[in-house]
């Protein structure tokens, strides 16, 4: 359990501005010093209260759980060390499948989603059929429940017995995931493209850039940067949904846990798999936060006209 420092706790930290000019002989007044001391004290107290209330909440929750009449049963069914030890390596083996699917499908989804988004935002009457097709695609695949999409692709496509089309459930499952998620991501990109102010495009065109160049060098960079958080949302969601390819019999992390649960009727492997997934998501989130922050810093440095 970590106690996050409250917002108010940081007020005291930036109260020592104005001392930058060391040579200007500035001496802070007594009143100012008092004010800062008071602010620091307030911040300390806020932190202390926050810590205390968190501790109390934790203790209460712990007592509620541990005193529940079913706790001993729950403990041995969901938190059994033996089964956790047995499940961990098998779940990790399965997780390798999730990770591979995430990397490959993620890359395909980004490319396909971007293409569809650009197709939807093309101007000019000649592109009308392309715009309609792109819109129809996003409407259909965003509406179609993923599980049904997977069923049709993983179990239906092989039934067609097409020459040269794979029957590998993992490849087919990856295809189904890519179809659905491209539709989501295309909408994210489209929102990003449309959120760039029209003056940007107008300025680019007035500088003599073609429509394509304006899109490529002016609009898309701004659109993508704005869309990082929602894109990450979709990526995390995709990471968890990769497990659904187990419909075709492939053994992913969750199915590996399933197998042990089915044999032993002990649910600990599910907890292990769940925690591993969470642990996988956290570094990914931190990484994208860092990338976004870096992009923002760069933007803040340049751009001053």
């Amino acid at each position, binding site marked *: 359990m970590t106690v996050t420092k409250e917002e108010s706790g940081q007020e005291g930290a930036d109260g020592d501005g104005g001392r930058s000019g060391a040579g200007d002989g500035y001496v802070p007044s007594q009143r100012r010093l008092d004010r800062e001391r008071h602010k620091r004290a307030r911040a300390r107290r806020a932190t202390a209260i926050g810590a205390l209330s968190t501790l*109390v909440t934790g203790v209460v929750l712990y007592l509620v759980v541990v005193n529940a009449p079913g706790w*001993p049963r729950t403990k*041995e*069914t969901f938190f059994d060390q033996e089964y956790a030890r047995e499940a961990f390596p098998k779940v990790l083996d399965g997780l390798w499948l999730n990770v591979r699917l995430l990397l490959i499908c993620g890359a395909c989804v980004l490319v396909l989603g971007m293409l569809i988004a650009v197709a939807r935002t093309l101007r000019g009457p000649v592109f009308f059929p392309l715009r309609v097709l792109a819109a129809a695609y996003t409407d259909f695949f965003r509406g179609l429940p993923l599980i049904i999409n997977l069923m049709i692709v993983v179990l239906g496509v092989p039934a067609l017995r097409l020459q040269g089309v794979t029957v590998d459930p993992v490849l087919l499952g990856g295809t189904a995931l890519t179809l659905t998620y491209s539709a989501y991501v295309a909408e994210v990109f489209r929102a990003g493209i449309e959120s760039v102010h029209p003056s940007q495009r107008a300025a680019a065109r007035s500088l003599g850039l073609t429509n394509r160049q304006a899109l490529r060098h002016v609009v898309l960079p701004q659109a993508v940067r704005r869309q990082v958080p929602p894109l990450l949302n979709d990526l995390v969601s995709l990471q968890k949904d990769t497990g659904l390819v187990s*419909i*075709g019999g492939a*053994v992913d992390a969750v199915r590996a846990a399933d197998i042990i649960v089915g044999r*032993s*009727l002990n*649910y600990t492997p599910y907890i292990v798999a769940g925690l591993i997934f969470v642990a996988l998501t956290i570094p990914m989130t931190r990484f994208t936060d860092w990338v976004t922050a870096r992009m923002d810093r760069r933007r803040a440095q340049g751009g001053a006209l």
Partner: protein
Amino acid sequence: MHPAPRALRRAVAVATTALLATALGCAPQPDEKAADAPSGAAGNTCAKGKLATKTSGKLTVATDEPAYEPWFKDDKPAGGEGFESAVAYAVAKQLGYDKSAVVWQSVPFNKAFAPGAKTFDFDINQVSISDERKKAVDFSSGYYDVRQAVIALKDSKAAKAKSVADLKGLKLGAQVGTTSLDYIDDVVKPTQEAAAYAKNDQAKSALKNGQVDAIVVDLPTAFYITAAEVTDATIVGQFENQGGTPEQFGLVLDKGSALTPCVTDAVDALRKDGTLDRLEQQWLSDAVDAPVLK
């Protein structure tokens, strides 16, 4: 440092006390049946029709939906047709509940074993008895000796397998949570990872589509699948029992249920008087022997 306003402090103290009180106070008292009392504790009378069932005077029996042939007929557990439906009614009669006093309930396979209060008196769903599972639920004595069989498409090379060793190089599949899958992992030990399906239906389509070479199911199911559902498939053979003890299906009851000894007595009585054999003849007679894979 200002002292915290007194009102605030008092409020926090009151709230804390109240929370702690509720935490300790709202824990419901464990019911009469101590959860970890050994199953079959003495003092249980199995008075006919007067058992401590969920609904007094009724016997609630659970199974999964859909209910498959040959265990149930037409997905209607209450019909009394199909082996497990017939066994459930025979056990109920033995316990003193006639057909009108039996209430069926649909409970998914996995849900039947989750800890927490059960909504049924017993569950009948082709669940194999194992010592490991006995830690989580109670079982009656076994009502059917089950063997596992391998199915493959007639024209495939898997159909020509004569021994367990012949299956090693194949892609095999089975339903997750079943002993069929354990047989693949523990007996065959194939070179390719076994495909694990959520339902037998998906295993059947995978077999039809050529995504797996062969699937493993229990023998009666194998006969039903090859006779009615995937007619271009054949039974390659059956496995020998692991460890020399026959694998058995048992009725699932809540851990420490007061009914376990009564239900076990009922199943034993049905075995003694030949009822189980008769029902097996009636519903599973198609499941004759298949060649044993050594």
